[in-house]
C-alpha cells in the first residue's frame, strides 16, 4: 500500500515505531500531488519547501521523544478560509488574493504546535458560499471519482484532496453543509461539530452563528483522532464552549444494540433521488441488523429550514463582509475620485457573483421595511427547528438522513440557477440552524459516485454519532478509492 493511501492512525503508528520518517511521508504525499493535482486541482497554494523543512525538524524531534503526539509528522490540508501566518489565505476570492495573515487561526496554531505538517491550502467556493467549489475565483476543483463532476462545496478542495490521496486528512468549515456535502460527494468522512466546540478565531467569517470548523478524513477513527486535537475552549473566541473534551477515540466501539435511530421523513422527501434513498435504506437495514431500533419520525419545521437559512446566513454575511472596503487589507480599486466610489468599485471588482448575491439578499432581509418580514421571521423559524430537534432527541439517540439529495452533479449543471444549487444543502442546513453535530460517512455508490449517510446527534453528542458511524463503517464493505486514472 502506498503511504498516501493510508490513514493518519496507521501512519502515526509507523512514525512512532520509526518505520517511516516525516520527510518520507511528506515526500510521498507530494509525489502523489504531482501525479494527480493537475486533474483534481484541490489546492490553491502548496509550499513544498516549507513543508519539507518542517518535516525535517519534526524528524529531529521524533528522535528525542519516546512517545510522539498523534499529529506529529502527518501531512494535513487546510481550507483557505483558515488563517495561516505567513501563508497566503485567499478565501478563493480576488478580494484576498494577496492576503498574508499576521496571525494563525487557533486551529492552525494547534495543529502546528502538535506537529502536523501543513501540505497546503485548499480550494473552496469564494468565502465558503456555494455547494460545488465552482464559485472559486481561481477555478473549480474536480471530483476524483469522476473528473466531469463537482466535488461538492464549499470545502470541495479539502474533500477532494483527501479522496485523491493528496493529503492524509484536512480541515474544512461548515456553515450549511460545507464539510458534510463535499465529504459525501467525494466518498470520505466529514464532521461538523457542535457549534462552539472548535474555536472560530482566525476562521474568515461567513455567517458567525452557523460557521464551524471540522475534520475531513478517510475513516471514522481518523475523524475522532483529529477532533481530539482541535476541540476545546479558546479564550480568543467568545462563542467557544467551556466544556471538558473527552477522548473521542473511546467512543469507537462497534456495539450499537438497542440504540434508537430516528429517520426524519422531511429529509427523505421528493427532492432526494431514488438511488440515494436506496443506499440510505440499505444502510438502515445494516444498522437494524446490528441491533438498532430504526423508526420514521417527523420534524415538521425542517420543511422551512432552507428558507430560513437563506435569509439568516446572507444577513450575517452581508454584515461580516462589510469589512472588505479596500482600506486595511485586501484588494483596492484604483482610479477613484472619492471614498464611496472606492468602496463600491473595490467590492464590485473584488467579489464574485455568488458573494454579491448573498450580500444583496442579506442586505435586503435586514433593510427597513423588510427586517421583520424576512430576518425576524427566519429567526423565529430557527427557534422551531431547534425545538423540533430537542423533541426528537428525547425519543432518539441519533437521527439519520442522506447527506446530499444526489450524488455528485456535473460541472456547470447548476451554476446558472442559484436556487437549484441551494437545494443541494437541504439535508445539511437544519443541523447548522440547531447548532448540533453531524457526520457524513460513505454508505454506497451510484454509477461510480459515492453516496453519504448523515448521522445527527444532540448538542455535544459527538461521541454517540462517532460510535454509530464507526459501527456502520466496520460492518460496511466500503466504497473503496476513486479510480482516478491519470
Amino acid at each position, binding site marked *: 500500500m502506498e503511504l498516501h493511501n493510508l490513514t493518519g492512525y496507521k501512519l502515526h503508528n509507523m512514525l512512532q515505531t520509526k518505520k517511516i520518517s516525516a520527510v518520507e511521508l511528506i515526500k510521498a504525499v507530494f509525489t502523489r500531488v504531482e501525479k494527480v493535482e493537475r486533474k483534481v486541482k484541490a489546492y490553491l497554494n502548496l509550499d513544498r519547501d516549507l513543508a519539507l523543512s518542517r518535516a525535517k525538524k519534526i524528524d529531529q524531534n521524533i528522535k528525542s521523544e519516546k512517545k510522539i503526539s498523534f499529529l506529529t509528522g502527518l501531512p494535513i490540508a487546510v481550507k483557505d478560509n483558515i488563517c495561516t501566518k505567513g501563508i497566503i489565505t485567499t478565501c478563493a476570492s480576488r478580494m484576498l488574493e494577496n492576503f498574508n495573515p499576521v496571525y494563525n487561526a487557533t486551529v492552525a496554531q494547534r495543529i502546528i504546535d502538535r506537529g502536523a505538517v501543513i501540505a497546503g491550502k485548499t480550494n473552496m467556493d469564494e468565502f465558503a458560499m456555494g455547494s460545488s467549489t465552482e464559485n472559486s475565483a481561481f477555478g473549480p476543483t474536480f471530483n476524483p471519482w469522476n473528473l466531469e463532476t463537482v466535488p461538492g462545496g464549499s470545502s470541495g478542495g479539502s474533500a477532494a484532496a483527501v479522496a485523491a490521496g493528496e493529503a492524509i486528512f484536512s480541515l474544512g468549515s461548515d456553515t450549511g453543509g460545507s464539510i458534510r456535502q463535499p465529504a459525501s460527494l467525494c466518498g470520505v468522512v466529514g464532521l461538523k461539530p457542535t457549534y462552539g466546540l472548535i474555536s472560530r478565531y482566525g476562521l474568515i467569517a461567513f455567517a458567525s452563528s452557523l460557521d464551524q470548523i471540522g475534520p475531513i478524513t478517510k475513516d471514522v477513527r481518523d475523524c475522532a483522532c483529529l477532533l481530539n486535537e482541535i476541540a476545546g475552549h479558546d479564550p480568543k473566541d467568545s462563542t467557544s464552549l467551556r466544556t471538558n473534551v473527552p477522548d473521542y477515540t473511546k467512543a469507537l466501539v462497534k456495539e450499537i444494540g438497542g440504540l434508537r435511530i430516528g429517520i426524519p421523513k422531511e429529509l427523505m422527501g421528493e427532492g432526494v433521488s431514488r438511488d440515494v434513498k436506496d443506499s440510505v435504506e440499505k444502510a438502515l437495514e445494516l444498522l437494524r441488523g446490528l441491533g438498532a431500533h430504526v423508526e420514521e419520525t417527523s420534524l415538521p419545521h425542517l420543511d422551512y429550514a432552507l428558507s*430560513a437559512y437563506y435569509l439568516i446566513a446572507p444577513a450575517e454575511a452581508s454584515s461580516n463582509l462589510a469589512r472588505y472596503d479596500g482600506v486595511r487589507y485586501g484588494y483596492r480599486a484604483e482610479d477613484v475620485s472619492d471614498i464611496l466610489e472606492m468602496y463600491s468599485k473595490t467590492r464590485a471588482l473584488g467579489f464574485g457573483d455568488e458573494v454579491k448575491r448573498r450580500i444583496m439578499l442579506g442586505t435586503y432581509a435586514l433593510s427597513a421595511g423588510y427586517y421583520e418580514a424576512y430576518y425576524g421571521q427566519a429567526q423565529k423559524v430557527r427557534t422551531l427547528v431547534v425545538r423540533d430537534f430537542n423533541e426528537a432527541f428525547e425519543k432518539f439517540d441519533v437521527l439519520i438522513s442522506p447527506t446530499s439529495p444526489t450524488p455528485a452533479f456535473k460541472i456547470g449543471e447548476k451554476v446558472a440557477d442559484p436556487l437549484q444549487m441551494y437545494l443541494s444543502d437541504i439535508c445539511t442546513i437544519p443541523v447548522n440552524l440547531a447548532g448540533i453535530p453531524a457526520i457524513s460517512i460513505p454508505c454506497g455508490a451510484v454509477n461510480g459516485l459515492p453516496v453519504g449517510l448523515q448521522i445527527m446527534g444532540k448538542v455535544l453528542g459527538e461521541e454517540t454519532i462517532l460510535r454509530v458511524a464507526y459501527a456502520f463503517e466496520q460492518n460496511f464493505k466500503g466504497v473503496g478509492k476513486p479510480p482516478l486514472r491519470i
Partner: protein
Amino acid sequence: MSITVRDVEHIAWLARLELSERDKRKFSKQLDHILDHAGKIKEIDLRDVPPTSHVLPLENVFRKDESEPCLTDKEALSNAPKKEKGAFVVPRILAQD
C-alpha cells in the same frame, strides 16, 4: 412581491456594490426567485415564537481588563493597499469647496 431593478439598485447602494445594467437585470431576476422560495416561511404562524439569533446559552462573555500582547503597527499595516507614516491612506472623504 417581486424584486425590481430599482430595488436592486437600492440594495446595491446600501451594500456599496457597483453593478452594471446587465448585472442589475440578472440579479433582480435571481433574487426574486430566491426570495419567492424563502417567502415560504410566511406560511407558518409565528406570533408567539421568540427569535433565535444564537444557539448557545452564552451571554456577555468578558475577559479581564488587562493589556495583552497585540499586533505591532508594522504587522497591522502589512496588508494595507496604501499606507504612509504608520497610517492607512484613503481617498478624499470630504468634498472640496
